């Protein structure tokens, strides 16, 4: 089945979508697609069939989300912990990834038509090189698309992601691009894999499990959590509609809690110390000079440092993709020459 589906909505679904869209719709939904293996067991299929059905359901669910105006979807496709499964199952999942990313390349026109941006979040280094190269190609091909966003978490855990952000920040400090005092919640978020995404509004987990399993722990801190008792391959449009209604019922309370969140008090105003010294010096030289002017200057300098640091990180990501694309080109050339 294709990544992008173009089925016409039935009248009843069209009606339901219009009714739901008259209320608040989450703009970013994250999904833990749990239950593929239990579905396979229940129906006496191989596990491979369960995972394939899971992918088919993903393609369907994306269509339903985009119908509702949910422009960004993040899915938990493969955890770092899943490498502990049997080699046979891991190989099967890697093969499924190869097929699906290859299919993505073939559907370039359709993806461009709907302007879908694919991002892959996770520690790519743990994946086979050919899959890393395919991921790099998909990401590069769709990076300028901006109508809909699909983030696929592969070789991912949230704690690993948090450590990745901490390493980025430590690198910035040790290279002198940013100051230790520049580290704040908002800068931290720009160092996570989800740096280009808004915080998730709604998290859906299927199969009846009621835990987050190391998925987007930071990002979903203030998200609405919807635990649904249905196996992922059996998830239907009605389940999605129920989840959106559930989100709408929690919308006001969560918005209120978000606005009453304590402000980022973790960033000590270390500007104070240089300002203090500068003020003391200024008071000696120019009695009556304003402190605010110096504080503004220091804050502007901070913003400049942060801007340079974020450009540095973006360049690092682009360089990684370019290296993978280059290595794939070299591999293709070598294969061609052998023939």
């Amino acid at each position, binding site marked *: 089945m294709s990544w992008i589906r173009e089925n016409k909505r039935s009248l009843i679904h069209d009606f339901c979508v219009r009714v739901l869209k008259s209320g608040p719709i989450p703009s970013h939904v994250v999904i833990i697609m749990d239950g593929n293996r239990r579905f396979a067991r229940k129906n006496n299929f191989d596990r491979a069939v369960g995972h394939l059905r899971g992918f088919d359901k993903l393609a369907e669910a994306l269509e339903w989300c985009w119908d509702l105006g949910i422009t960004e979807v993040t899915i938990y496709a493969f955890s770092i912990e899943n490498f502990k499964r049997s080699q046979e199952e891991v190989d099967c999942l890697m093969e499924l990834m190869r097929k699906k990313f290859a299919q993505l390349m073939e559907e370039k026109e359709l993806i461009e038509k709907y302007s879908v941006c694919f991002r892959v979040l996770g520690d790519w280094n743990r994946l086979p090189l050919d899959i890393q190269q395919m991921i790099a190609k998909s990401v590069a091909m769709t990076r300028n698309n901006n109508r809909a966003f699909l983030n696929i978490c592969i070789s991912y855990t949230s704690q690993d992601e948090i450590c990745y*952000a901490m390493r980025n920040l430590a690198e910035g400090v040790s290279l002198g691009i940013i100051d230790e005092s520049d580290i704040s919640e908002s800068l931290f978020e720009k160092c996570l894999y989800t740096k280009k995404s808004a915080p998730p509004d709604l998290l859906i987990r299927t199969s009846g499990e009621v835990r987050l399993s190391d998925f987007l722990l930071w990002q979903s801190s203030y998200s609405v959590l919807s635990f649904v008792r249905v196996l992922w391959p059996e998830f239907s449009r009605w389940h999605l509609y129920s989840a959106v209604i559930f989100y709408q019922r929690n919308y006001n309370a969560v918005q209120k809690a978000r606005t009453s969140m304590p402000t980022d008090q*973790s960033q000590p105003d270390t500007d104070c110390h240089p300002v203090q010294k500068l003020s003391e010096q200024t008071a000696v030289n120019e009695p009556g000079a304003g402190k605010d002017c110096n504080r503004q200057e220091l804050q502007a300098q901070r913003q400049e440092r942060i801007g340079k640091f974020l450009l540095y990180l973006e360049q690092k990501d682009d360089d990684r993709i370019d290296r993978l694309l280059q290595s794939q080109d070299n591999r293709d050339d070598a294969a061609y020459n052998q023939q």
Partner: protein
Amino acid sequence: MTTTILYRVLLVVVHLTISLKELLAVICCRMMKLLTSGVGDGEPRSVPAIKHEASRRLKRLPVHLGIVVVEEDLHVVDIVKIVAWSMAVGISYITIYDYKGWCKKNKATILRVLEEQKEKMETNGQNKTKCSTVNNSNGVINPLTGGGDCQRQKPKLQIVGPEDGRQHLISVARHLSHQVLNCEIKNDDIAVPFVDAVIRGNDLDPDPDLVMKFGAVNSLLGFLPWQTRLTEIISLPTHHRIDFASFLTALDQFGYTEQRYGK
């Protein structure tokens, strides 16, 4: 324009219907409780009675329970009842959290009311019974606190606020950057086991394996993001006038969860 208003009205009707259904369910539940157990189910029970009921009904206990209150209106007496019951059934670690940090600011009040509650429960337990045991989620027999020949295990209570969640992770990030800058550690050292040890500091407490979330808001609202990676989350409608039967039902539900750890 007219159709937009019509769709909006229909949506409101859907939400009202769901609210009515939920209200009817709450009323039925309360009536059932009144009919089956009578008035006074929220009254403090004795420690031996709690232990007996827990060992009869529960498959396993969490080692660390998070009590997350997402309601605006906090009732100290009810929060303390939940803590006291948790201690009585034998839960070793208990953490209280509310998203405004009120509980942390009023820790002294909570501890004082907790002592009063524990005294009431001990006064109610006139006959000392033998200790009963319930497996905790590590499979280790966990002797419940009590008199007689049993050893007393002192449960650990902590009260946290939003500053112990994301803001603490930011402090850790700053600290690690400082260490890398001063060559005390290498950047590559910043990996999950190392960061986990730094976040915990001197505490060897396990992560919460169960959160009981009290309130209609279906979100953890900032509760310890790092530590909740594998936490089971069970929601209860409110902590106001919470009764022991509802608390036990939530613990019972926990007993049927199964962790696969990615496998």
